């Protein structure tokens, strides 16, 4: 047997992190720990541009001094490598979930050897963040890959654990490394290493401890699962709108629980979910398919707060038009009604100046801001809004005729443009700022006479008519038509681009109707519309489509 196979070899550790995350600190700790615990240690890293948030790899080898050089050896100290070798890495530590994926891709983590310690938090790549829709990669699939691609997966949100302790992720990951038990060194040695390194010792130790425990729990869980593999459970009847996150995220967990509660109450007792002035209307909710009721209740509240209970009646009328199509189907998903209930409410409660002002002055919003800024009880906190109302947005809130005059007046455009070109900063927490926004919010009763209100209602009716017409022929495509409202988002230029895209999508519907895979094609067009802001991707997709239709 070769010396390598017989175990006279270093323990190899690769750390995949992003520049500036403390991977250097972590590898320094490992070297110090190794040197004080009977190992010859070597670490390397690639500096350079990797330091600016780019993905980077630190590599550590620890050679046990219990296997010294024989007499007459070529070297007296072990020869350690500067590269991780694919298939030969004992421990991979990934500071973020996509980096764990990278470790798999590069062959560092393999099922025969590697203990993969992965922090499940996500630091989104620019590509993921840029998309107009949801460009995030699938966390579940990454986790499943990490599990399959390692001997033991220790996954937990080590970023959050570190934060809890007021420290940084290197400390909790060091704890996880200790907790994994891969290195036969007592916990005290790890902690002593942190103590000797100097700064922020107490907080680092606290984060270390959290990481240690989390790793032991995760390892135990993984072992247990290995012993009794669980059958994958099918998707339940509850349709959640929030993205699937690893179950460790308490925020996502709470949101899931709340969605479940809301869903159940919307079926059993919808009146308990609304204020007194909407209770009576909840009787209409029971005629909706069960799967859609939670969304309908949300929609009722949304439209009432936005405008009035009468507006809610209009909302219910609109949503009810879709019920029949789902009743005729044998699945209980009620996708069409559910999505209609969602998008009608969102469109009806469009983001105009009045609505934004209302959102800014709500009590729960100001409380949320304080919490986010970690302002203590009674600690003085000021909130400044960055606003820049455009002439169109101002014209939109005015009564129709006045608004039309304003948006057509070159003179007024110049004046308003001058005032608003560089925007304004409003201190919501000041007497003047709050009053201004409060007055704006109270313009709500004027809204039904405004330019935009008229325009939006017409557009909504036209869109719903199309959806209903399509639904008679192609249920799936009708779902697509309803969901196309998703491209209507943003403000100013973004919104007008969205409007353009929406128009193009609606225009293509008649030509798709009756065709095979119409819904699939249409949904992919929606995805294209969300790819970029100027609609280039959508135009190209439409062009390809036109060509394929000709041929």
């Amino acid at each position, binding site marked *: *047997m*070769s010396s*390598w196979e017989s175990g006279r070899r270093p323990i190899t550790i690769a750390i995949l992190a992003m520049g500036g995350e403390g991977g250097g600190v972590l*590898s320094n700790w490992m070297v110090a720990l190794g040197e004080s615990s009977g190992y010859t240690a070597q670490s*390397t890293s690639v*500096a*350079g*541009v990797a*330091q600016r*948030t*780019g993905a980077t790899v630190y590599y550590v080898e620890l050679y046990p001094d219990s*296997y010294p050089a*024989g007499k007459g050896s*070529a070297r007296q*100290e072990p*020869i350690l490598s*500067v*590269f991780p*070798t694919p*298939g*030969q890495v004992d421990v991979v530590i990934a500071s973020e979930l*996509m980096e764990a*994926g990278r470790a798999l*891709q590069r062959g560092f983590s393999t099922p025969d050897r590697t203990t993969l310690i992965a922090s499940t938090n996500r630091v*989104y*790549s*620019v590509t*993921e963040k840029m998309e*107009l*829709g949801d460009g995030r990669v699938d966390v579940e*699939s*990454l986790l499943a*890959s990490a599990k399959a691609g390692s001997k033991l997966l220790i996954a937990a949100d080590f970023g959050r654990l570190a*934060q809890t302790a007021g420290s940084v992720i290197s400390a909790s990951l060091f704890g996880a490394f200790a907790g994994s038990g891969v290195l036969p060194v007592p916990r005290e040695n790890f902690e002593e290493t942190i103590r000797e390194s100097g700064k922020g010792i107490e907080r680092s130790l606290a984060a270390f401890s959290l990481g240690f425990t989390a790793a032991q729990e995760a390892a135990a869980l993984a072992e247990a699962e290995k012993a009794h593999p669980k059958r994958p459970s099918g998707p339940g009847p509850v349709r959640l*709108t929030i993205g699937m996150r690893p179950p460790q995220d308490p925020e996502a967990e709470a949101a899931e629980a709340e969605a479940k509660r809301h869903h159940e109450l919307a079926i059993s007792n919808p009146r*308990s979910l609304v*204020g*007194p*002035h909407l209770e009576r209307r909840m009787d209409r909710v029971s005629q909706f398919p069960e799967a859609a009721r939670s969304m309908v209740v949300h929609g009722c*509240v949304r439209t009432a*707060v936005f405008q009035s209970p009468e507006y809610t009646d209009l909302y219910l009328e609109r949503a009810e038009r879709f019920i029949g199509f789902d009743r005729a189907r044998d699945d209980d998903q009620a996708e069409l009604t559910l999505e209609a209930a969602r998008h009608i409410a969102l469109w009806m409660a469009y983001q105009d100046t009045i609505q934004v002002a209302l*959102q*800014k*002055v*709500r009590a729960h*919003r100001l409380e949320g801001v304080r919490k986010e800024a970690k*302002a203590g009880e009674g600690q*003085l*906190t*000021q*909130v*400044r809004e*960055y606003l*820049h109302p455009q002439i169109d947005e101002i014209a939109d809130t005015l009564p129709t005729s006045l608004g039309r005059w304003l948006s057509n007046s070159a003179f007024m455009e110049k004046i308003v443009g001058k005032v608003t070109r*560089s*925007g304004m900063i409003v201190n919501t927490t000041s*007497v003047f700022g709050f009053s201004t926004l409060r007055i704006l919010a109270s313009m709500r009763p004027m809204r039904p006479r405004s330019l935009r209100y008229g325009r939006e209602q017409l557009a909504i009716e036209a869109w719903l008519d199309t959806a209903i017409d399509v639904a008679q022929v192609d249920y799936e495509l009708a779902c697509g038509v309803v969901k196309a409202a998703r491209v209507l988002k*943003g403000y*100013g*230029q973004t919104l007008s681009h969205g409007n353009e895209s929406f128009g193009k999508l609606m225009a293509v519907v008649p030509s798709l109707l009756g065709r095979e895979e119409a819904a699939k094609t249409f949904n992919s067009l929606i995805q294209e519309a969300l790819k970029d802001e100027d609609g280039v991707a959508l135009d190209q997709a439409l062009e390809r489509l036109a060509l394929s239709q000709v041929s």
Partner: protein
Amino acid sequence: MAERSFAKEVKLLRQGAGSELHVEGILAVTKALLQSGVSYVGGYQGAPISHLMDVLSDAKEILDELDVYFENSASEATAAAMLAASVHYPMRGAVAFKSTVGLNVASDALANLASGGVKGGALVILGEDYGEGSSIMQERSHAFAMKSQMWLLDPRPNITAIVDAVQKGFELSEASNTPVMLDIRLRSNHLHGSFIAEDNKRPQMTVTEAVENPKRDLSRIVLPPASFLHEHEKISQRWPAAVEYIRKNKMNEFFDGEAEDIGIIVQGGLYNTLNRGLELLGCSDAFGNTKVPMYVMNVTYPVIDQEVIDFCSGKKAVLLLEEGQPDYIEQNINSILRKAASDTALHGKDFLPMAGEYQTHVIVKGLATFLGQYRPELISSTPSLLLPADNPSSPFAPRVDAKQVQARPPGLCTGCPERPIFSAMKLAEREIGQEHHVSADIGCHLFAINEPFNLGATTMGYGLGSAGASALNAQGADRSTVAVMGDGGFWHNGLTSGVGNAVFNKNDQVLVIVDNAYAAATGGQDVLSTSTKSSTRSTQHPIEKAVRGVGVKWVKTVTNTYEIGKLRDVFINAFTTDAPGPKVIIAQSECMLNKERRDKPARAQAIKSGKRVVRQRFGVDAETCTGDHACIRVSGCPSLTIKDNPDPMRTDPVATVIDSCVGCGVCGANAHAASLCPSFYRTDVVINPNLADRILGSVRSAWITMLSSTVERRAMKYEVAA
């Protein structure tokens, strides 16, 4: 002020003979310089050797004690020219810079230095930037060694070996009157290991003694007819002297092995990877007890003919591990063997890839081919990486959906003052409806080439952003070109190669000079225009003054890049003006990393001592945000990211500002300048409020409670309180 402080580590430099030092490669090199009695040190920062310059800066006190002169050179050319001090005086000098870009810049001075030769040992320490993580074009330093005839050392990635190479390098240089290049590979610079120290030595001659006793020797000056003699001297005297020193001092190493009929020749820098490869195949152990005889070239230039012939004699085949291309060493050894009428087969690039880094798996594959052909019985184990990728046991078997793992290139840091410059440029282009050819430079601003900015077409070298646009100077065109340059590149050579050139040739380009007060990309080193005072250097020399000094008429300095609206207007002005000649925009704001390093402790101190401090951060209203991410597309800030939509009705993620936000204000300014959306807000938390704060606070709070009660009462009719 550099990014990383070595104040703690440099104390180790005082350690005397016999003590074991556990250090990083760069620190070991510094200690080795002091142990060698170096008289002067210079250099220019650049990864992977930036930290060597930072260590030397932080070691000023120790250098002063030993009368060692140190300077941060203006460029690699300056650094190389500095070695002229070793031409006539028996002084040891060392300079350090990044290879190969540094060698490109320095090669004029180095060629002249190598021609006349040196009396005192002259060492060029190269931070080799080749392979994974490199930020530059992939070329070899070997070519420079050959063309000017300088010796090239390529020590094993081992701290003791590197320290030894520094000390022997000086001796070799003196023994052969030739400058020596010491190649420290990318990963060796930050290699952590240990070595046994020696005492520091005072220089044999200090720079003061040299200055006070001027000397010159006409035969050492590069001027005909001496320069013709130099070329002959290189061959007839310096080369043989070098060979003798290298052989006598056993700089290259030979290891025996049981398979005497074959052998491996390896560049010193690849030795550890080679041994790991042999270990994996069962042909060596952790202490280098190889079964295959090995010749380790710790000196890769010159190649010692006799050593090669001796090693190959009696062998039917040898394998050469030489990283990079062209295969200079392979050609050289082939020529040696041919001339010696040897029948040993030489393998190299036929079994190993011609281009690219020789990582372990690459070398293992090459070794397996070689041994498989000549001594297959030696291979006693087969590592999984040799399996084909479609075998599920291969480490390269697809284990993750490729779409789920996206590239994560480096980008601008949180709060970087350069981000708003590119936001403003994009907004200005959008407003005037014209896109431009953008000639980029080296520096952090180069990251604008990637998403989300997508600005920048070429990058021709440090400080050459302006020069890179010099041909595109069309008088009849409806727009100008745009060039970008950092303050680091500007002072390195951009002032003359770019600005002076544009003035002289009446180039109408718009030149943006990013003035963040440091050479930020290389780790935040001071430059001439650094805004803070320095005790050791002369700083605070404004770029605008320099630019006007070479004749630029149209210069606008924007002192706060975070005012995107203002900066956008300056761009529009520059894009649309009829003024002839270069339009220079100096965009100033201090590198946020450096600023935070200075301000953070001060802020913490102020809070502790009860002073009033306002802590700022930005935020996004999830309710108001519609999840269109337009803000991200004009910013790309790491602190501006996305999260699950808390609204149970909406599906797309909303924008959010995370705790790493430093409150620079770019997102707010962007929202303003681009008229994006009203979701952005800034929170100011007052820590240690004074009386006025408290009174104002309670008045406001009462007023808000009063006004908001009606809003909440109305909402309560429809909502159930959460």
